[in-house]
């Protein structure tokens, strides 16, 4: 009995923290329509800042609390709204997701720079009123837990009061009801959005400061990941209901704690208990009401024209020739980096197909890369082609299975369902099956006749050839019937449905094809690394992957290559310049943040540049221009 009570109290305390941070997410989402994936990182930075102030600089606790929760975090939130989120209003959901993911990565990089993980064990935050406890029935409850519950209750009551009594609170609900009318009555929409970001950040900070002492030594990743789980109760609250969100937070807290407490240790379920919130998230999403078909939108993307078959063949041959040359020039680490670049480039291409061409978002693409590597490890002994085919088949089937559930969803909910799937796979699959204690899984290199792929040079050329073939294939697809079908689906699902297209089937097919391509990349990636661990395929890497694809220009094959090579360079940079180890994350984060203003990425800039040059030099083609409403034929 007392055991049950203990677990219940721990569960409630954890649940209260989820409820607090999730409320922050919901407040921001409901007034601005943007779900902040960087929310957890804000909590983490706040906890570290609080530690810095109280422990290192001996600032009094109350003063530090005011500085962090009531001043620092709200100001940061307001700045975020002004600088990053305002240009994101009404942009495609993958862009909104990726910019806040950029914020997450940026803050992680910054925190790693400021508070080196090497010294992490020495950083602990004392609990509030540490040493004091209260006896409740047969169980001792420390004051910190009581503080957490009290604060959560106070915040819940306070928010309720705020939303019904204060004018700003009423106005925030008014914005949810009808944003246009809210502006029409004279409420300042941007100021309200800014306020909601400030409030959201303050709640994240509060959650972080309360959570950190419970986790022992301050850990950047653990803090961030814990608070990211606040997405689960937020979705349970449909991203708009605070009471449901609070209830969801408590349910998650209790479920996880009971699972830890009561499941037999060493059982599969006990090992996978960390996945419980994500399984709940996946179920919550799948059970969501089916949404109506989206009507068309103005894409606003600068679409580069797909090059002709002849040109893409030319480019492919040139690329292969260049890679043969490169394989002769490079060696050792540099060659390995280049190989990782082209191999990951294939994974990037899978997102060009899915996100760039078909307009679907996947936050879990690395998972399919991982299952590909797994299949290659088990079925691709001595580089058998069977392994590579199995990698495509396994990942393709898995992609189709996810799609069966996910295609009913769209936009943010689709993205979240792939995220939930990827996270669950991290714990249920990757942490369990990549060698004992994550020691790694050996993968043989794919062998093809006529090429010595056991040598680094040969394997690099193989990777380059497969990348080139995949690129030419994608471009051919884009120019053809299937490419038109995907473009049509992206432009107007409604119109497609009324023209007899089975949208669910089409989406399923493209999800599956994209996953299969990612699986092939995984098989090659495994061979390149020889030994892969679960860390290679963590969800976090999926987020970075999507971010980089968007930075390269989401529908551009060349953009995928450029950013994949950049990605492959990270570890190398780290080796050569250890102090740079986190600067790259800061840089990537900053790059992603600019996407809010320049949604077409690098590729978009390149396309515009090329058009500009063509305009200057060419002009001999007859062009049709519009004057007013009339169409005028003009010779240039």
């Amino acid at each position: 009995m007392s055991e049950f009570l203990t677990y219940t109290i721990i569960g409630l305390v954890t649940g209260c923290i989820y409820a607090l941070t999730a409320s922050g997410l919901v407040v921001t989402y409901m007034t601005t329509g943007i779900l902040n994936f960087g929310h957890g990182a804000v909590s983490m930075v706040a906890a570290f800042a609080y530690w810095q102030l109280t422990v290192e600089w001996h600032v009094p606790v109350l003063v530090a609390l005011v500085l962090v929760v009531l001043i620092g975090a709200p100001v940061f939130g307001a700045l975020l709204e002004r600088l990053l989120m305002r240009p994101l209003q009404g942009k495609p959901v993958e862009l909104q997701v990726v910019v806040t993911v950029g914020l997450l990565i940026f803050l992680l990089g910054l925190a790693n720079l400021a508070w080196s993980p090497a010294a992490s064990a020495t950083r602990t935050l004392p609990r509030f009123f540490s040493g004091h406890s209260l006896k409740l029935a047969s169980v001792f409850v420390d004051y910190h837990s009581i503080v957490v519950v009290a604060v959560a209750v106070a915040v819940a009551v306070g928010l309720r009061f705020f939303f019904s009594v204060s004018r700003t609170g009423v106005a925030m609900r008014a914005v949810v009801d009808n944003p246009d009318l809210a502006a029409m009555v004279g409420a300042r929409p941007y100021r309200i959005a800014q306020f909601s970001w400030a409030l959201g950040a303050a709640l994240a900070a509060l959650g972080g400061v309360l959570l950190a002492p419970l986790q022992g030594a301050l850990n950047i990743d653990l803090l961030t990941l814990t608070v990211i789980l606040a997405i689960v109760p937020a979705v349970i609250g449909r991203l708009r209901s605070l009471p449901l969100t609070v209830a969801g937070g408590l349910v998650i807290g209790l479920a996880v704690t009971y699972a830890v407490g009561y499941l037999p240790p060493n059982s599969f379920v006990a090992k996978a208990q960390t996945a419980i919130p994500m399984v709940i998230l996946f179920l919550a999403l799948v059970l969501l009401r089916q949404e109506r078909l989206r009507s068309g939108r103005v894409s606003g993307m600068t679409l580069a024209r797909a090059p002709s078959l002849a040109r893409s063949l030319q480019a492919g041959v040139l690329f292969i020739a260049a890679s043969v040359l490169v394989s002769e020039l490079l060696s050792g680490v540099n060659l390995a980096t280049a190989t990782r670049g082209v191999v990951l480039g294939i994974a990037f291409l899978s997102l060009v197909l899915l996100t760039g061409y078909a307009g679907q978002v996947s936050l879990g693409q690395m998972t399919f890369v991982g299952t590909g590597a797994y299949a290659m490890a088990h079925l691709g002994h001595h580089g058998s082609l069977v392994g590579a085919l199995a990698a495509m088949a396994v990942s393709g089937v898995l992609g189709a299975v996810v799609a069966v559930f996910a295609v009913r969803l769209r936009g943010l909910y689709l993205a979240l369902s792939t995220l939930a799937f990827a996270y669950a796979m991290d714990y249920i699959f990757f942490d369990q099956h990549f060698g004992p204690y994550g020691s790694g899984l050996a993968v043989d290199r794919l062998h093809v006749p006529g090429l010595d792929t056991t040598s680094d040079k040969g394997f690099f050329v193989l990777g380059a050839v497969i990348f080139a073939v995949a690129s030419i294939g994608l471009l051919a697809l884009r120019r053809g019937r299937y490419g038109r079908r995907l473009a049509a689906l992206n432009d107007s699902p409604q119109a497609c449905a009324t023209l007899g297209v089975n949208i669910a089937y089409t989406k399923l097919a493209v999800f599956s094809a994209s996953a299969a391509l990612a699986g092939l990349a995984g098989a090659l990636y495994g061979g390149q690394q020889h030994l892969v661990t679960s860390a290679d395929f963590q969800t976090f890497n999926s987020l970075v992957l999507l971010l980089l694809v968007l930075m390269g220009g989401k529908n551009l094959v060349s953009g995928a290559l450029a950013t994949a090579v950049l990605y492959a360079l990270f570890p190398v940079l780290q080796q050569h310049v250890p102090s740079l180890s986190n600067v790259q994350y800061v840089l990537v984060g900053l790059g992603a943040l600019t996407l809010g203003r320049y949604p077409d990425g690098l590729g978009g800039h390149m396309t515009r540049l090329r058009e500009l040059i063509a305009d200057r030099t060419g002009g001999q083609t007859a062009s049709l221009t519009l004057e007013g409403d009339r169409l005028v034929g003009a010779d240039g």
Partner: protein
Amino acid sequence: MRAEGNPQGGVVLAVAEVSVSFGGIRALHQVSLEARAGGVTGLIGPNGAGKTTLFNVITGLEKPTQGRVGLGGTDLSGMPPHRRARLGMARTFQRLEVFGSLSVRDNILTGAEFHRSWSRHADDPGSVTEEILDRIGLRAVADLRVDAIPTGMARLVELGRALATRPRLLLLDEPGSGLDENESEELGRLLVDLGEAGMAVLLVEHDVDLVMRISERVFVLDFGRIIASGSSSEVQANPDVRAAYLGTQPADVDDPSGPGGGGA
């Protein structure tokens, strides 16, 4: 069902007592209408009368709270939009739903390819596309991205794309807006031709002149109800219709005496 003396063919579309409500607001109330093969059926009504909602119900994009829709004798209840389309209906949208990133030609080609993907009787998509380009008169702009052409033309693109699936029932939602007088004249001729070729055309249009000119039969929707139906001249002379459009009371069109009880 009234027996009509006009030369139209059999009933292709039958809408029977369809009602739709959104959160307590009734958008359609017991709407019944039909469209026959071989001619244009007009559907007019003031703003917010529920015309687009009715199209959405017919094509399966919205579920009716009550009532059924039949196509050529097949009950469409519960059928998803793509299966309805495969039975031979196609539509255009009031708020354009073109494939903006594709060229005019590719929009129509895509429609023809979609048709080919589910129909055994489809002709070669390429030749279908060229034929339709000529028919709707957009050959001159065939290679322009649809994002970059004026609305009126984009509406024709939607029409062409719908025709590419060779429908027996064509639902047109305000195809004439954005067209000038000549163009709307041509559109009228095209629709009459389509009717004469045996298609059933249901036309929603705020250019009442156009509707009256080319429709064999006209239905008038007001506040989600059908308030009148009949030939153009019958509908034009109907006092209820004038009331719906002008806000006058039905009984006394010219007499501005005080309003009666609960209105329409």
